[in-house]
């Protein structure tokens, strides 16, 4: 039956995370943005608090990359039909992003490195790489696909891997890697031969401290400034063969590349819902601002203008959330959802852009001020249209699934 209501359990988790976002994340957002980082002791406290979130039990648990205690790697690669994991994840992530998107990306855990390890890793690898998150201290995973010469075009990566006895030797550069410098391990995509295209690609888990593996530049960005974006350098970096995700067998067919892509079916709605969280924050803030000035401004034609803009903002937030939920529901039901995942991400990012720009506009000069969150949301939101596949790439994914004949572009 069609139903857009949350279960009691989901409501409870949402309320809990919302309270957490409002009292712990939101009040620190501006200071961390200015400092260009989230302090370690804050993250320590944060992960301690996150551990206290109810897991929801059974299928309904929040995976560890999004602040729940999640699976330890022992779980099967694909969620079984009827699970609510994706929907739970989305509900939590929206609240967290509403609190602060940068802090959310800094949450200790495997991050975007989680899904490839879960989908492509062997049970041994899952246990080993997720295991580190059960040990005390701050631990991070990262996802290293993008290179200076290849972003959207994943098949264009040039980082090379060469087998040498029981090790692989990696050479190349990765850029814009979230949490790349602080990560305990990074899933690095490399190629045995660029001419082989996707079939030549391999995914490795490269651990911090591996000789030949170093951190380059840390980027300065328009937004999400508290989130670390790093360049990674691999120079004759030797990685044990046990760190080749899924083992050699996985790469016999197209499965290796598909693994990398399948990750996106999971992460795109998630990234979309983060955009929803930011947009909702901007919408609510603006709505309250206009409401507070309502009595004063009531007789003016201008009020009608602003009220209409705010109403539009609310509409866009809701439409975006529903697209994300639909993609998540499909994933939970075990249905292929690549098109819907792209639609959710593309629509939510675009709508959120509009909402955040209008929030600045409605607030007028107040919206420009750096001590107001609206200014920050405007800077933070843009990248949602870029990472995890740009707006254009999402449209290509969608087009390929709706057109009878797929054009060469």
């Amino acid at each position, binding site marked *: 039956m069609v139903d857009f209501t949350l279960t009691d359990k989901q409501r409870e988790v949402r309320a809990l995370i919302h309270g957490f976002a409002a009292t712990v994340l939101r009040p620190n957002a501006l200071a961390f943005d200015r400092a260009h980082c989230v302090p370690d002791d804050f993250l320590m406290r944060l992960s301690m608090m996150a551990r206290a979130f109810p897991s929801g039990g059974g299928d309904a648990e929040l995976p560890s990359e999004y602040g729940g205690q999640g699976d330890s790697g022992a779980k099967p690669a694909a969620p079984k039909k009827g699970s609510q994991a994706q929907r739970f994840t989305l509900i939590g992530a929206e609240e967290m992003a509403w609190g602060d998107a940068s802090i959310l990306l800094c949450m200790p855990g495997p991050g975007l490195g989680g899904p490839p390890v879960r989908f492509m890793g062997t049970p041994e690898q899952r246990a080993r790489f997720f295991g580190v998150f059960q040990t005390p201290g701050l631990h991070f995973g990262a996802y290293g696909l993008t290179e200076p010469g290849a972003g959207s075009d994943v098949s264009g990566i040039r980082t090379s891997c060469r087998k040498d006895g029981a090790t692989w030797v990696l050479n190349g550069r990765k850029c814009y890697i979230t949490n790349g410098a602080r990560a305990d391990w990074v899933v690095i995509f490399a190629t045995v031969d660029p001419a082989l295209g996707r079939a030549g690609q391999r995914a490795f888990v490269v651990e911090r401290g591996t000789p030949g593996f170093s951190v380059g530049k840390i980027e*300065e960005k*328009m937004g999400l400034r508290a989130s670390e974006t790093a360049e990674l350098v691999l120079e004759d970096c030797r990685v044990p063969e046990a760190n080749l995700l899924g083992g050699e067998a996985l790469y016999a067919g197209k499965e290796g590349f598909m693994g990398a892509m399948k990750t996106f079916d999971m992460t795109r709605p998630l990234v979309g819902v983060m955009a929803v969280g930011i947009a909702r924050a901007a919408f609510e803030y603006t709505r309250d601002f206009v409401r507070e000035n309502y009595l*004063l401004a009531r*007789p003016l034609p201008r009020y009608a*203008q602003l009220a209409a803009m705010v109403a539009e903002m609310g509409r866009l937030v809701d439409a975006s959330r529903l697209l994300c939920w639909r993609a998540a529901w499909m994933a939970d039901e075990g249905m292929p959802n690549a098109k819907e995942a792209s639609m959710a991400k593309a629509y939510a990012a675009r709508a959120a852009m509009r909402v955040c720009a209008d929030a600045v506009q*409605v607030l*007028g000069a107040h919206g*420009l001020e750096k001590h107001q969150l609206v200014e920050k949301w405007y*800077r933070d939101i*843009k990248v949602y249209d870029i990472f995890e596949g740009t707006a254009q790439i999402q449209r290509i994914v969608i087009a390929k699934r709706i057109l009878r004949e797929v054009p060469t572009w």
Partner: protein
Amino acid sequence: MISFELTEEQSLVRETVRKFAADELRPVARTTERGGACPRELRGRAAELGLGLLDVPEAQGGAGLGLLGAALVHEELAFGDAGLAIAILGPHAAPAALVELGTPEQAARLLDRLAAPQARGAIAWSESGPGLPLGGFRTTARRDGDDWILDGEKAFVVNGGVAECVVVFAQDAGTTGWSGAGAFVLDGRGEGATAGARCEWLGLEVVHAAPVRLAGVRVPGRDRLAGAGGFVVGAQRMFARIAIANAARQVGLARAAYESALAYTQDRVAFGKVVAHFQAVSFTLAELAMEVDAARWMVWRAAASFDAGAEGALLHAAQAAVQANDAAWRVADHGVQLLGGAGFVQDHLAEKRMRDTKTLALLGPSDQDHLVAASCALGLTEDAGAGLPISALQPVVT
């Protein structure tokens, strides 16, 4: 006869400023943004080039370019950098207030203060805190013999605290609404006027702005500007001038964003193809080119109408402003988008333009103010202030 042809003088001005912007502004856009200040020498260079009182008639000590000529200059400067485009022009919006609200005698006398090469001007319009629903100001002007005494606090004032010629908007004590409002030119910095902490903003960070508190500031009676046709009309015309200049800046910013996206996507390769050759990208580039041009022609038409004293000038100004704000936002956004991740990091100027364009959109009347002004001009609605910005609801930067 319909023509888009510039006069020889206009073309020359445009070429000169284009070169100046490319050679001297663009290269320091990022460093001056980070430093938060426009170097004195750069303002000196602008003065050397005669970039001061652009649209003020020569008889009054200005460059006599008219609004159209000024629009060409603003576009080129902002093509270099939108922040510097504002910061290097010391008089800022003050001449617009003096010309539109002052008598010819007042304008001539007060413009003189802005003629010095490093002189800076300001207009203090917005107020923070709850304002007044029907317009007007909370800052009061009280008569004291021949003088006026100002009390209150103005917000979001460009050049606040550093300008030598400050036009403060205030309410004659005991009156309400726009009809009791006036403009008062402070004597120098104004004794009793103090600037608050510098505004820290999303974009245009090189521009200095601050709130200004007025505690018993004395203004000689002859420096109260009332507007020949009344306050509302004078203020409307002042804002139309400001809006046209600003719209021209948006066009310059948009052109810069478009050109850099055009260059980048023709160098960048993905999927074995030059990125610009993908349909999704080339169609987008085509749209951006159209947006930039459409906005420029709207700006030119508004400027030409204004210069000619044509009927409809105010409507055209409002339309140009909305068109340019919208176009620039979209082009700046795509300017980031088409660079992918590189657009979001600060090695390129793309992300800066996205912050600057939104800030420019709130410099002077907002789009909502313009839309009200336009609907008034079209006879669709009535508004006592005919689209003057209202602080209570949506303060603007002046």
